[in-house]
């Protein structure tokens, strides 16, 4: 039941926001903002409760829920959560709260719809992380696009409508390939079934498995994003409002990574082994290409957007290294990137709210004018360049260690990211923290921004210094993937 609650809570909370606005009007729409914060806090608390075993689970899953729905066509409400899923659900709720805090100054118009979209994104992403009926999964997957689209198109900056459209088209194309694969799988089974566990048992020809894997992965790779289908990301991240960028980087990209992590090994382990070398090479391409592009940017937000391509390349590489260390690293990197990229967007967004730009030649001198924002930049840039002691180092180092065990040239290539990340991170710092302050006074971080930054910094440090806690949470999912792949290689 707790899993159903996790999906319903942000949905109902979001739908109740118009009522809040109507019956509790307040200056600057404070009640709506506070209500959203409350919903996110409750959601996070519920997810943490599930993590600590409040849900009815078995040995493998911390919480399970099954309700027959349209059993004639094989659809049921099948939800399950382990450490990976529930960890990501907690992360989603936390970033929902961070986005709310980050938009306090920025969003002044159509406030209710804005927060409704935040709640909608959280609902849909939570559904993605918990659904094991593939039609349900697809439903939530497509559902994520709508609120995210509205956030960019209505509340963004610059060529926001164009960027929103680009985001939509890319993800729609990928999403349709996912739908096709799911329909082909479910309808191909007799009787029709969409339950992932049941589908895992279905025998398929190697060719069919390969095509189905590619179809499914198309959606995941677009969302991740992998090169060369990353074209939507820089525009969408740059033109989105701060909350949109935080949710895109912190949550939506993670749904792509989660899909790749969870379903291909479960459904098509042999095909996954078959494509693994290509996928790893694609991951390396993303790491290097995204990193190089970030080094050439003049816009701070765009620079951060391209670093996402690079960091998510590590996730892709780690998943397809087919080795426990790299897989663990990929899962840790999902969280690490969510913390650090969201935080950087938060800081850049705060600057944008003050100076009206994120062009790097117009920023600068923050050390003198706004030491708290400068400290935030410095810390999260250090996280982005995978400084040991931050979560990002744990993720990337584990991926590199694991990759060296299976394919050392790729591992060596990934190590080059350490250099690229210093080049772009210091480029960012040189143009923000360092330098002569501009003529306009820059107000330092206020209490809300500082609280959001501190929370994210704490997350980065806790995972960075005590990674074992998170790793143990992620291990059951990691080992399940390992068992599925082993069975495949043992049987074949």
């Amino acid at each position: 039941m707790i899993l159903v609650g996790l999906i319903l809570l942000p949905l109902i909370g979001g739908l109740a926001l118009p009522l809040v606005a109507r019956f509790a009007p307040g200056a600057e729409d404070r009640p709506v903002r506070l209500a959203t914060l409350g919903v996110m806090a409750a959601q996070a608390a519920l997810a943490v409760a599930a993590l600590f075993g409040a849900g009815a689970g078995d040995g493998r899953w911390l919480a399970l829920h099954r309700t027959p729905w349209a059993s004639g066509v094989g659809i049921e409400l099948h939800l399950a959560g382990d450490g990976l899923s529930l960890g990501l659900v907690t992360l989603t709720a936390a970033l929902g709260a961070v986005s709310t805090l980050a938009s306090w100054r920025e969003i002044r118009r159509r406030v209710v719809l804005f927060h409704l979209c935040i709640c909608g994104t959280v609902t849909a992403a939570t559904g993605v992380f918990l659904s094991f009926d593939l039609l349900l999964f697809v439903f939530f997957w497509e559902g994520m696009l709508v609120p995210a689209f509205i956030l960019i198109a209505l509340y963004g900056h610059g060529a926001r409508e164009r960027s929103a459209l680009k985001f939509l088209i890319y993800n729609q194309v990928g999403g349709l390939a996912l739908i096709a694969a799911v329909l082909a799988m479910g309808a191909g089974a007799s009787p029709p079934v969409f339950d992932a566990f049941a589908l895992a048992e279905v025998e398929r020809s190697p060719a069919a498995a390969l095509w189905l894997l590619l179809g499914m992965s198309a959606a995941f790779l677009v969302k991740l994003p992998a090169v060369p289908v990353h074209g939507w990301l820089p525009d969408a991240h740059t033109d989105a409002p701060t909350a949109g960028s935080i949710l895109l980087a912190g949550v939506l990209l993670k749904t792509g990574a989660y899909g790749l992590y969870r379903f291909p090994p479960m459904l098509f382990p042999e095909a996954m082994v078959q494509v693994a070398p290509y996928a790893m090479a694609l991951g390396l391409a993303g790491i290097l290409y995204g990193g190089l592009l970030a080094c050439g940017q003049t816009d701070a937000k765009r620079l951060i957007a391209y670093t996402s391509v690079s960091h998510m390349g590590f996730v892709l590489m780690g998943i397809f290294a087919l080795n426990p260390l790299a897989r663990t690293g990929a899962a840790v990197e999902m969280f690490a990137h969510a913390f650090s990229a969201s935080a950087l967007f938060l800081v850049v967004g705060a600057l944008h709210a003050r100076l009206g730009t994120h062009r790097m030649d117009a920023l600068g001198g923050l050390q003198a004018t706004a030491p708290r924002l400068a400290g935030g930049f410095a810390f999260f840039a250090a996280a982005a360049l995978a400084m040991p002691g931050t979560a990002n180092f744990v993720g990337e180092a584990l991926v590199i260690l694991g990759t060296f065990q299976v394919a050392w040239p790729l591992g060596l290539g990934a190590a080059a990211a350490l250099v690229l990340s210093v080049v772009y991170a210091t480029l960012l710092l040189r143009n923000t923290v360092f330098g002569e302050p501009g003529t306009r006074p820059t107000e330092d971080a206020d209490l809300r921004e500082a609280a959001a930054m501190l929370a994210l910094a704490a997350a980065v440090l806790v995972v960075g210094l005590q990674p074992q806690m998170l790793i143990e949470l992620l291990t059951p999912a990691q080992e399940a993937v390992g068992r599925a792949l082993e069975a495949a290689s043992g049987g074949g």
Partner: protein
Amino acid sequence: MAEALLALIPAPALIGFALLLGWPAPLSARMEGRLGAAAAGGSAALALGLAAWLFATGSGAIRVEVAPFVVTGGLEAMLALRFDALSAVASGTVGVVGVLVVLYAAEFMPREGETRLRRLFALLSLFLAGMFAVVLADDLVALFLGWEIVGLCSYFLIGWRSREAAAADAARQAFVVTRIGDALLLAGIAALFARFGTTSLPELFGAVEGAWRGGATLAAGAIGALVLAGALAKSAQVPFHVWLPDAMAGPTPVSALLHAATMVAAGAFLLARLAPLTEAAPGIGAATAWLGLAGALGAGLAALAQRDVKRLLAWSTVSQIGFMFLALGAGAPGAAMAHFVTHAAFKAALFLAAGLVSREAGHERRLDRLGGARRRGPLGFWVFAAAALALGGAPWVTAGFWSKELVLAGALGAGPLGPALWAGAVAASAVTAAYAGRAALALARGGAPREGATDGPGAAEAAAVLVLAALALGLGPAAGPVAEAVGGAATPHLGAAAAGIGVAAPLAGFSAALLAEAGWAPRAPRLAAAARGGFGVDAIRGAVAGGFGRMVHAVSGDPLARGMHALAGGVPRLAATFASGAADGAGPRAPGGPEAWRRRGAERLARFARAPGDDLLDRLWRGVAAGAAGMGRMAGRAQGGRLRGYLAGSAIGAALLLLLGWAAA
């Protein structure tokens, strides 16, 4: 007991960092300095106490596992610390130099007119904590943790004057160049782990002993090269020496700390720590020795040609660490560590004294303007002179002489090429004495005292430089025991002739400096200019930065994404071709029927496909915008756009869907 103390060594520095960074109330300038000094002092006291215990009791190495870091999938990375002779020597040196530099900085920096020192002392504390982690680590992951923290702190410390563009650029250059080495070192760690399944140093040494001693392989050489590259970059050795001279943009105490016992010396320490590994890897010892010699000689000549006292000292650091690498490559880590200790003392003394001399001359750093230092501020001058004698290796009376003798002996004992290495080292030693003498003599030159100059040293400054000067002169007798404890001979086993030449070389260097001061110097302006530039440092830097810039430029504008969009742009073009073909084949019919619809559709598609611009999405967006404008008031611009866009996306998706369904079936 000893184990608990060992685990606590980095703690004071870390606590100091946390307090300085996080204390909610403003702190007085004096309090900031005291906190910083207490942080460094606490760690130093623990390290020295433990070192005294270790040497007094003659106990063996102790190891403590502070906490597990990552334990999963076959990896057991522990935050493990080790205290043996090597860690004792290194951590004691780091502690003593660290606390003296912080004490000096607490007085020096405010007098330079610098404010907001809280961040500086916080960074210095974290920097020292990282350095302690490096010298105490007994696990490669723990070592790398400290190694990287040192790198990050050096970035912020070199760029401490954050408003100056030169400082920001120098900091960035230092960080990027050292990170190249860090990346290679991490790759080396990953390769070692992939090969031996452990990151624990004792286990690793055991495994290497078994696997590589018999017949070393190419892989062993490659791993050794990765580790060596990490050490070379951190220590600013050839070919990574480009970053160090510019790093002088940092404040003087920072330069002293970075150059004397920490950061730059960390590379030498790493090779001493991993000696069982690098010595077993084929070719790595020789490469280390020859690269070290290249650094010692080349950077020595570069120092000889400098006009700025801080840059002279910077090049001198490259050169002196070259001596350490030479000894390490020659299989004499004990000699290298002896030089590590004496170098820490005399180099810190030189930098701190130079800071005083420079301030007394009105923030002048050019050597030809620093004359008369003795009359302006005798303390700074005499400390500088004493430390310069130690740097030059003035025979018998300075510590530098004894450690350099050990290095020379190590070089001579390095197998068949030993004599060649030794001869090069002797030459480098003479060059060292020449530039050290030149710097001291430049300060001693006549010159009137500045009017009303009363920038004399304060109590803490004076104490710090005096202690360091005393160590630079008096540590000589300690060099032998240090070398013996770490590994190697306590006394240089040189024949009478070799020993005589070892004594003569610095004397010759000092004499050359005296002759030059008297106007007897040979003129070689072109060589001097090349040396002043560090023998093509600018060319190397330009080539690397230019190459990287070209790579960044090549991908600017995201060609892959554009290519995808152009590729997608082919879809409507293709569709238009098909549609028009179908319409043509149908022949003329009455207008209004389905054929007309098809024809009109084909025309539209063709127009769309031929529209200018290479980006399908741009064109789609223009089409949407135009369509929406046409819809006028009936539908809002954004809404219409969304609908059209959605439809377009769905259409492309549907095409893929059909394709996929066909393929899967």
